[in-house]
């Protein structure tokens, strides 16, 4: 049995165990509040070959969050996949050598926040605020592919914010609150 570590094992359980060992009462222990955050930054080539790997990594990372339904973790990973796909398709032209995407996944007790950053110049022409909401009824009558990715992102994530000022990297921030159901 390994010696417990505050960094690798569940800190709250450890705190309770250590507290009890020190003779601290349950009532006193319950007054302690703890918050943890996790931040992971991944830089990867803007190629479709990488999509599934990054998606699975995101899904596995968010799936262990207490209070987050498995389906929600899957949805968040889908939103990330859709966002990365959009960057790969629209942000970089053929002239850009080694295009990269930076994905930052931030997990707190309140929310999962994903920030995607790219250096694409074509991305500056992308204005999500100007994209009309998908008319799903019209899509049924006249089915055509396209536009579904962003629709899914907006459906899954609670907040979506895009920055694309000239001379700066493009940045898409998406946030999903952990307590929101469904």
């Amino acid at each position: 049995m390994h010696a417990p570590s505050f960094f690798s094992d569940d800190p709250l359980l450890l705190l309770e165990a250590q507290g009890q060992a020190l003779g601290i009462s349950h009532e006193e222990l319950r007054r302690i509040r703890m918050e943890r955050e996790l931040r992971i930054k991944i830089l990867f080539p803007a190629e479709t070959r990488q999509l599934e790997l990054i998606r699975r990594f995101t899904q596995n990372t968010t799936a262990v969050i207490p209070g987050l339904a498995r389906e929600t973790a899957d949805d968040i990973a889908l939103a990330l996949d859709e966002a990365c796909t959009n960057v790969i398709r629209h942000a970089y032209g053929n002239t850009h050598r080694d295009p990269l995407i930076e994905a930052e996944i931030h997990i707190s007790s309140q929310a999962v926040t994903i920030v995607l950053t790219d250096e694409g110049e074509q991305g500056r022409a992308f204005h999500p605020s100007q994209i009309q909401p998908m008319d799903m009824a019209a899509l049924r009558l006249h089915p055509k592919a396209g536009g579904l990715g962003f629709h899914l992102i907006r459906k899954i994530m609670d907040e979506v914010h895009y920055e694309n000022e000239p001379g700066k990297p493009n940045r898409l921030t998406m946030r999903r609150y952990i307590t929101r159901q469904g």
Partner: protein
Amino acid sequence: MLEIRRQKIKDVEVIHLQGVLNADTSPTLENLLQELSQASLPMILLCVENIDYISSAGMGCFIGAIGNIRKKQGDLRFCGMQPQVRRIFTLLDMDDFFFHFDSMEKGLASFALKNEDGP
């Protein structure tokens, strides 16, 4: 990451898919569906029980082909849809846009019924 196996049973093109259907893998399927929708009466059954994941790129394949297929009185249907695949249809409010069946046999039978009702 995507394996496609084709089978023709009576007049139905049965396509068995395995793996993931995302922006990387979907162009192959898209080309195949476009090719199959050239038939005079396209009847396509997609067996998806071995699909682990599908994104909007995958949905785009189906949606891109369905208009043309249904105009010819044909159809594209699914069998073996697992929860992780069903999810994207639900998110897009398209649960009832495509027929789906528990098994390949039931999917094939649905096309046979259609033929019996023919003109």
